[in-house]
Each structure stands twice: as C-alpha cells, then as structure tokens.
C-alpha cells in the first residue's frame, strides 16, 4: 500500500529546531541515507521559485475593450532587470484577477520566469507580450500558478515582505526537500514528523537535540472563554483507543491561513485548505500525530441537546457514514467510530465525516487528538480502501504520550493573534496505566551491559560514548562502569528490547564504522546438496544435447489447464492473481513448455528442444509433506518440436525418447518404455497421446520415472503445435534416487567382430520384444568372457506388406581372450535365428 511512499523532509523546516549549522546538502543527504533511511530524491525547491518577486500594485485600471482585464503598474523596488519601466520605475502588467487592486502586495512573475506550477513538467516560460494591444510584463500569480494551493479564482495576496523582496526567501521556499523512503520508519512513528527527523539529524551529526518546550512541557496557560461550550467525551473502546483527548474552541473565523503556513504545508506536499484544517495538518506534519477538527455546532445539533458529545465506539447495526471524500460506507463491525449520542461523525483515525466538516460558516470547533490501535486502523483502512495521511501515521502506532503537547500546541496556534479562545476544559480519556503516564515513557528503563552492545556490533565503544549518542537523541541514560540504564523518551514506541538499544547505538554511531571481519570457521567442508548438484548435471547434459533450458511461471491460466485436459479443481488457485493468466499453480511442467513452442516457431526457429526443471503442486497432496504442508514435486520436462514445413519422416516420439535415453545413460541407467494401455488419471499424463506415448521406468530397479510421448490431437490443435513434436516429464527425485554414473568397461586387447542380421517379424511384435530376445538368446550362447553389443540398423516396412516389418541389427562381439572369427559369429547368428523362430513368427531375411 505504502510502497514507494516517502517522508518529505524540509531542510528549512528542520533547521528551525536545530541550533547548529547543517552541513552542505550533499553531505546531509549522505548522512541521512547512511544513518536514518534511504533517500529517494532530493528536490531543490528554490529553483522553482528563484525569479518570483514580491511587488506592490501601485495603480490598477480597467483595460478598455475588456470586461475583466486590468492594467496595473507595479512597484518591484526596481529589482527586475530587462523590463520596460515608466518614469517612476514602475512596470506594466495586465491582470484579469477579480481581486487585483491598488495597494496590495502580489507575487510577480517577471518575463523570463518559469511558471512554478509548470516547473519540471512542461515548463512554461513567461515573456513580455501584448494583451489586447497593451504590454504585459509577465504576470501576477495565483496560488495555483505558484504551486501552493488549488486557488485560481484570484491572485495570491502577499502578507509579508516589501516590494522587490525575494518571494522564495520571504516564505522559506528557498528550501531543499529530501524524500526519505518511509519503509524504514515502519517502527518509527515519530519520524513521520519533521520534529522527529530533525532530532535524528542532530543525533547522527553528533549534536545534542533539544525538543521545543511546548513539546516536553505542554502549556496549560491558554485563555479560557467565559462562555463555555458544553463538551463530553466517552471512550467505550479503551483497548483500541488508549488515549482520547479533545477541547472545544470558540470565536473562530474560518479563512485562508497566513501565507507562511500555506507555503510551509505546500513544501511538504500538503494542500492548504483553511486556517483550521491547516493547523491540524501542520501539527501532524510536525509531530506525526494526526488531529481532527469537528464543527462544534453541527456536532451538538445532531443530538438536539445543549451538549456536544463525542464517543469512541463500534458501529451500531446498519449504521452508515458519509466521509469527507463523499464516499458513504457501511463500516466494518470492528471499526472505531467517533459518534455523538445519536450519529456517527467519523471513522476514527481514518477519515472524518462530511456532516460535521469545518466550513466557512464554522465559528467553533472540537479539536480531537486521539491514539488509535494500529492494527485496527490498518484493517479498517484496507477493508474500506481508504488511505490518508492520518492512516499512514496511525498504522505505525503513534505514541499516546504526546497527545497533550500536540493538542495544546494546535490550540495555541489557532488562538494566536485572533479572537479565538478555549471554550472547554482539555478533556482526556486514557486507558494507559498510571505508571506509564507518570514515567513518561512507554517502557520501563532498561539495564544493558556495554559488552552486550559491543558484542553485537563489533564495536569497542565505552559506556560514556554510548551514553552520548543516545542522549543526543534525548534518551535518558545513566552510565555505570560496564552497564547503562536507558530510558526511552515518551515519543519512542520502538524501544522494547536490549537489541533495540543495540540498533540505536549502532545507527547513531554509524554503521559505516562497523569493523569488517569475516567469521572464523573450521576447515570442515560445508554439507553438499547432492540433489542441487544432480539438477545442475541434468541441465548440463541436456544443454550439451542442444536443448535450451527455459524458466516459465509457476502460475498458469485456467485455459491452459483446460487446453491440455487437466483438471483445474486439482490446482491451487490464487485469491489475488494479477490476471487470469496467472491464476493457478501448475499441475505439471509440460503444458508450460508447450505454451512456448508456437511463439518460438513463429520467431523462425524450425527445430528446437526446450526443457525446464521446476516444482509442481496438486490439491491431492495438500497436506502430505512432513510439516503437513502441500507436497512439492520436483519435475523435469522436455519438449522437442520441428516445424511441419521441415517434413520430417518418422515420429517425433523417437526424438524425445532418444534425448531421454541419452540423459539416462549419462547417469548409468537403462530405461524401459511400455505402451500405456489405460491412461492413469494423473495430471502429468493428460497432454500426451495415449497411442503414442510410453510409461518410463528404470530397468534395473523397476522404479517408475515418468512419461514420454507425443501430444494428443486436441492439445496440438489448442496450442498450435507442429505435428512433429514430443516430450517427456520425469520425477527428478525418483531419478535422483537411482542415478549413478555411466561406469567404465575394460578395453579388450582383441578386435571386435561385427555382423548384421535382419529379421522379418509380424507388426504386432514390438521392436523391444525382439531386441530383448536377441540379446538374451545371444547372451546365453556367446563365447565366455566376451562383450555383446546390439544396435539397430534399420526398420523397414514394405508398402505391399503392412502386416510385417523387417528389423536389421548390427551385432558386435568382443572377446577379452582372443580374436573371434567371422565363422564363429555366423554360427551364433544361425543358432539365434533358430531359437527365435521357435518363440515368434520370425524369419531371418
């Protein structure tokens, strides 16, 4: 949800809380990156505003022939160069804003200036140009053009500085914004505020940070109105709302905030709205603690009584709420609602309700500063798809010990220089243990040995060095000989274990100072993973045979499963697939390979072989592994394909079989291929053509290994396969269990004798049966201590006799004792023919 999100750090803002000179920007950025969090971007805001000047409108007159344009003469203190001036040194600008008038201060964009709102995107550079025949030197800017707010009804009326002043300097827009990845702050809610970041910056630069007084000692001296506004808060959810504070404020006038505040918010990416909402946002951006302002009169009116009441509770049956964003929700039943006695007015910690929104007519508010359970906020936010700046902060778990400071400071800002006053007591409902409140720290002080810290970091720091780095970040530390007593400040939620102190010391001291030293080890070799090595051997062997290893996704389209005749109901199905193409865990690997054949043929590859090693899963084995988890099967799949335009004779089956046998022989295995009379109901056999595939097993052990064959007509059609394609799928672990090495045979000192022999046999007799009989018969009668090898030379079928075929073998006999004569071999062949003739309808040709 928040991936790629950042905390925007305003260098000018944090400077307000630092009493030392910051290093140059690049050093500061490097330091933040190394010790606070990864820096995503550094934005030079000053460049965006560098030419904007403050000017006074000296005269303003309607432009003839225009219903809305005015001709203004402005005073920029003579600052801008290269503009035409009149004899008083004033500059002429045409302006169509309804609020332009003589006497006001404005933000002037002289000719040559890039309009700030277009900066960096599609830069719009102003020039001196004629409007209805009257020269306009640049323009007077609206908040929108200044990229400070949405306001575009009129120009921005400046409330500080004098003609000729640099607009950016006046409002601290000569700023550098450092975007820090906020993932690092998952456990650091305090760093979602500029104050927290300022403290970290001081500490990593080795400087003592001191929080402002209002933060550590909240002022209770705010003027209280004589006309009290009755306010009651109730907390029905003490577990989920550990702190619920509120105060009523009256005598308010809703208007735009002073420009320093508007520009401050805009610097850190917040849109200014009005003086009340802006103050709540200001405090949130400063401290990480969100606030919410309700219109007091609207809240009170909902109950029709004299008292305004806010209650933290769960939603009632069929209760609905319309939020500030206009969306109406049926809140999840565990959500934290803020409600009056009768009516919900907010989804606590997530978003306020529309009905009690602060508007231009508001004169009194209830200011709420609460702490909500992070897990509850996260679930509610996810359940309703609501993401706000408040959610981002609350779901990190804000400290419930800073509410009072934040609430009172916010009130103070609202009261500043105006007619507003507090209209109620500061109400505080908390479920925090009294010792936590008294201690002013979420966890009790910790004792930690300096050796514990050094051992985990590899440092050799003294207790006092550790105490200093911690104290710089406002930890309270008592330093003893070889141990420290550490108490975390009230805003720190993450200091629970001694390891958390280790992290703090390491980070603030500098991880770049870690001593790089490898662990010492014994010379005993690491355990070998033989299965891993076996898979590497398979890869090497198949690639030596010209095949290409591919990797395809573990997730497949339901349609692919359908296309190869597999049963989707056996496949694990994703709840949140990216697309239907990736919805199911695959049941076997061959379909994934078949899915890649057509595209490669189309790319111009006429003959190729693909293979993949991977895991497959099936609901049939959902809990069959040792941990009761789904069993994972390691498979090897192979597919050979030749474009039909190559017009290959024979059958692709034999290509796949050949690859398989050459692989098996590398591991010293002889394989048996048996026709499959009844196809088993297993997913991995589904793509294969029952008439043109074989079950594969190991001859020596009988271990079943998998299947080899061509693909059924439907599969070929569905996946646009060439007719001449075939493949296999094997169980790697079964193969691994029996694999050995090819082995070595002693060389004979005597030459081999070869002879070819051809048999005519009925078609129904398989090659394998004949070959087996030839081999076993010859083995019995061959000379002692000799080696017999038989290889196929030809298989021939006459066009006029399709009931028979002729098979020619080449016999090769090698004795380890003597040279065999041709005559001897011919005799053996005669005996063989005779014995075969007794078993089968076989004739030597």
């Amino acid at each position: 949800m928040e991936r790629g999100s950042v905390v925007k750090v305003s260098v000018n803002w944090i400077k307000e809380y630092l009493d030392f000179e910051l290093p140059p920007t690049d050093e500061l950025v490097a330091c933040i990156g190394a010790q606070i969090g990864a820096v995503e971007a550094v934005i030079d805001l000053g460049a965006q505003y560098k030419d904007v000047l403050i000017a006074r409108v000296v005269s303003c007159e309607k432009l003839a022939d225009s219903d809305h344009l005015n001709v203004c003469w402005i005073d920029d203190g003579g600052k801008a160069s290269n503009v035409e001036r009149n004899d008083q040194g004033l500059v002429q600008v045409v302006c169509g804003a309804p609020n332009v008038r003589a006497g006001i201060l404005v933000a002037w964009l002289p000719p040559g200036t890039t309009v700030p709102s277009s900066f960096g995107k599609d830069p719009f550079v102003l020039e001196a140009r004629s409007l209805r025949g009257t020269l306009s030197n640049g323009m007077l800017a609206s908040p929108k053009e200044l990229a400070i707010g949405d306001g575009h009804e009129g120009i921005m009326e400046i409330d500080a500085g004098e003609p000729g002043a640099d607009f950016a300097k006046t409002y601290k827009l000569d700023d550098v914004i450092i975007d820090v990845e906020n993932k690092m702050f998952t456990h650091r809610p305090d760093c979602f505020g500029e104050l927290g970041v300022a403290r970290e910056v001081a500490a990593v630069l080795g400087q003592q940070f001191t929080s402002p007084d209002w933060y550590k000692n909240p002022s209770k001296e705010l003027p209280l109105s004589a006309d009290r506004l009755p306010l009651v808060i109730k907390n029905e959810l003490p577990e989920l709302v550990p702190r619920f504070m509120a105060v009523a404020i009256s005598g308010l006038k809703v208007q735009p905030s002073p420009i320093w505040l508007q520009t401050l918010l805009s610097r850190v990416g917040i849109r200014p709205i009005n003086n009340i909402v802006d103050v709540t946002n200001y405090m949130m951006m400063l401290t990480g603690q969100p606030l919410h302002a309700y219109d007091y009169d609207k809240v009170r009116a909902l109950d029709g009584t004299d008292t305004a009441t806010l209650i933290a509770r769960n939603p009632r049956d069929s209760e609905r709420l319309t939020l500030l964003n206009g969306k109406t929700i049926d809140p999840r039943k565990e959500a934290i609602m803020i409600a009056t006695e009768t009516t919900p007015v907010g989804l606590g910690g997530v978003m306020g309700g529309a009905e009690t929104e602060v508007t231009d007519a508001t004169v009194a508010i209830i200011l709420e500063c609460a702490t909500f359970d992070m897990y509850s906020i996260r679930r509610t936010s996810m359940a309703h798809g609501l993401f706000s700046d408040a959610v981002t902060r609350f779901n990190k778990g804000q400290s419930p010990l800073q509410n009072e400071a934040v609430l009172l400071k916010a009130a103070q800002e609202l009261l500043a220089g105006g007619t507003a006053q507090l209209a109620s007591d500061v109400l505080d409902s908390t479920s925090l243990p009294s010792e936590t409140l008294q201690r002013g720290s979420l966890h009790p002080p910790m004792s930690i040995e300096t050796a514990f810290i050094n051992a985990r970091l590899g440092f050799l720091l003294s207790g006092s060095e550790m105490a200093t780095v911690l104290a710089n970040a406002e930890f309270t530390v008592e330093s003893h000989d070889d141990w420290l007593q550490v108490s975390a400040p009230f805003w720190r939620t993450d200091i629970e274990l001694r390891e958390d102190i280790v992290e703090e010391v390491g980070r603030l001291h500098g991880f770049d100072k870690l001593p790089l030293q490898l662990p010492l080890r014994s010379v005993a070799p690491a355990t070998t993973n033989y299965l891993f090595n076996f898979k590497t051997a398979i890869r090497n062997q198949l690639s030596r045979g010209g095949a290409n290893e591919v990797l395809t996704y573990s997730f497949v389209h339901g349609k692919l499963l359908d296309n190869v005749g597999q049963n989707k109901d056996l496949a694990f199905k994703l709840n949140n697939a990216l697309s239907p193409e990736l919805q199911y865990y695959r049941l076997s690997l061959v379909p994934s390979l078949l899915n890649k054949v057509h595209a490669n043929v189309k790319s111009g590859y006429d003959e190729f072989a693909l293979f993949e090693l991977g895991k497959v899963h099936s609901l049939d084995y959902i809990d069959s592994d040792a941990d009761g988890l789904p069993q994972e099967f390691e498979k090897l799949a192979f597919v050979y394909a030749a474009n039909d335009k190559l017009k290959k004779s024979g059958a692709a089956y034999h290509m796949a079989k050949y690859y398989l046998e050459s692989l098996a022989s590398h591991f010293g295995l002889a394989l048996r291929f048996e026709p499959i009379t009844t196809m088993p109901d297993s997913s991995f056999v589904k793509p294969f053509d029952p008439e043109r595939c074989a079950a594969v097993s190991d001859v020596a052990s009988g271990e079943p290994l998998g299947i080899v064959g061509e693909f059924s007509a439907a599969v070929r059609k569905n996946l646009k396969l060439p007719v001449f394609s075939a493949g296999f799928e094997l169980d790697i672990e079964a193969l691994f269990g029996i694999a050995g090495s090819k082995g070595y045979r002693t060389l004979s000192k005597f030459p081999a004798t070869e002879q070819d022999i051809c048999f005519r046999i009925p078609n129904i007799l398989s090659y394998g049966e004949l070959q087996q009989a030839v081999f076993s018969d010859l083995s019995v009668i061959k000379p002692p201590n000799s080696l017999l090898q038989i290889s196929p030379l030809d298989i021939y079928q006459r066009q006029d006799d399709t009931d028979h075929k002729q098979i020619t073998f080449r016999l090769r006999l090698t004795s380890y004792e003597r040279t065999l004569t041709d005559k001897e071999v011919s005799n053996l062949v005669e005996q063989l023919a005779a014995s075969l003739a007794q078993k089968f309808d076989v004739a030597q040709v």
Partner: protein
Amino acid sequence: MFMLSVYVISLYGNCFLCIKLKGLLYYSSDMSYQNTLIDQTAELLKNRLQELSVKQDIFKAVELRALYDQLRILPPEEKASFGQEVNALRQELTALVQATQVDAASLPPIDVTAPFASNTAVADRPHLLPTELGSVHPLMTEIATIVDIFGRMGFAAVESRQIDDDHHMFNTLNFPEGHPARDDFDTFTTEQTDKNGKSLIAPAHTSIMQHRILKAGKAQLEAGTPIASVMPGRVFRNEDLDATHEHTFYQLEGVYVSTGVNAGMLMATLQTFLNSYFGQELKTKTQPFYFPFTEPSFEFAIERPAVLRKDDSEEQQWLELVGCGMIHPNVLRHAGIDPEVYTGFAWGFGIERLVLMKYGIEDIRHFESAKLDFLRQFS
C-alpha cells in the same frame, strides 16, 4: 475439400485449379481484379500466404488494411466497385486459408519400444541437436555460481519452497498478526487454506526458510558447529510487470548463527561474496532499514558500474541489493535457540538484479519469456 472447391468455383467462375498433393493443397490462381491496386495486392498476399506459418495472419496484412483505408476516401461513384473487389479478395483469401488448415487428426499408434519408426530416413533418425545451440538458463547458471562461492565460504545450500503457510512467511519471522509490515510484501495467497484455516501463501521472500534452517541446525549449533546456510529459491510478489519488475523472481537467503557473531561480520561476508562474484572490489554502503525479523536491519548497496547508469543521480549510482541484519532474538527464540548465547545474521537478495547487472540485460521479463532469441545467447 471438394465442397470447398465447388463453393469457390461458383463464386469466382473458372478461376481456381485445386490440386491435392501429399495431403497439402497448392493453388494456382488466374483470378484477376479490375482494379490494378487490388490485383497487385492480391498477388502479393497470395505469395505471402504460402510463407506464413500461421495462415490467419494474412488478414492482419498492412496491405489489406490499406485497401480498406483507400475505400474510405474514394469518391462515392468509385466506392461500390472498389468495395466489391476488396470483399472478393477477402473471400478468396478466406477460402485459401481454410483450405490449408491441416486437420489435427489423430495419428496411428506407434511402437514405443523402437529406436525410430519404420522407414525413417537416415537423416531423420533420432539425434541430438548441435551442442552449440544448447543453453542452461542464465539464472540457473548464476545461482549455481553463487551457491558455489558460498559453498567455498562454508555455507550449505538448501532450496526454498514455492508454496508455504502464514506461519513461515510471517509468524516465525516476528511479524505480529495484522502488522503493517506484512503489507510491504504484496503476497499472493491461495483459496486453499492450511490446517489453521489460513490461506496458503506463494512465498514473497526466501526468508520462509529461516525458521526451518534454524530449527534443523539447533542441535549442531549446540554441539559447537555454526549454522551456515544459503537458500536459493523462487519467490512471488503481486506487482505489475515492467522492464525492472517481475512478479516471479529468484532470491537467495543466507543465515549464519554462532557465538559472538556481530554486524561487522555480516558486512564482511556480503562484501566478500560480492567481490568474488563480480571479480572486482566494489564500493558498498549500508543504510539502516526495517525488517521485523532482524534488529538492527540494513540495506546493503553496491556501486553500479558506470556503464550501467542512466544518469549521474544518486539513485543510479547505487544499487540497493541486499536486505540484511542481525537475526531478531524472537526469531531465534522461536526456533528454540537461546539469543543470550547465540547471535547471528541473515540476508536476502534478488538474483535477477545481479544477473541483469553482470550481463547488461535490459529487460527482466526476458528471463521467463522462454524466447530462444534470448536463451541461445547463453549457449
């Protein structure tokens, strides 16, 4: 076939000669179109049709589309005749395409024990393709290389799972239920559930192996042998594909636990590995980070070789490669290992980034594309 020919003939008169030869259809056509442009296009497309492996693609021809574009801008009086002829051409092409569709008919049974089929030409007898065409997938090659380096450093390899439970993905790694850090992983879950009724998970990191390795290594650890393992494996994240993001990728997790292990050792181990892998001394830097299962946590970045930088920005200079840290005491405790006695470190990094960088591969999607154009470059 006959029916089709009749149909065609009745449409176009005596313009087709249909010969059935060896089961394939060849056409010669003397059909001519009045309009020269259409006639030329027809000739061109019919020739091209013979070359196409997917005959349907003829309808995507730009030349055909151009005829329709032309039709749109013609003056009304020419529209009718031109339109008729374009339609006639389209119908002719349709007939040609249909006629070439080879029926995916079932093939006769074969002798599965034979080394080759009867009467197979010697050239077509089974053989292996030339070695120079073959290739091992670059990711697998690199994983083997990485495992080898760590093997020499004393780390045993254990491969990771591809479907797992919430327990190993989050609980044993010190992610409390409902913790927002869980959101950072964009985890795929399945409709099917584990024995506790929680969705099974497509692992989003190889850290799912940490608890297993720690549990399995506890006894040897207590007998004095450190736990030192690397766990390569395939992981999944629910994120959209682009040139630098894949939803399916490979990671390598590492775990080292012993007595007296410190964070400096972690940095030294990673740096030693990376220098060995890239065959040069690389500049590295560490950034603090947050993971619930390590404390402290770091992100380890290496300096990207200048040739692989898009610009001079800080972002381009460094490649954040490894998430790592000292194993959180709760994670050790979960596996029954006493964090007062033993400390350790863990890391995880993506394989693809290393390989993209090593070879200068421009698009991560090539890895799982199964394109021979890509794969055969690694022959």
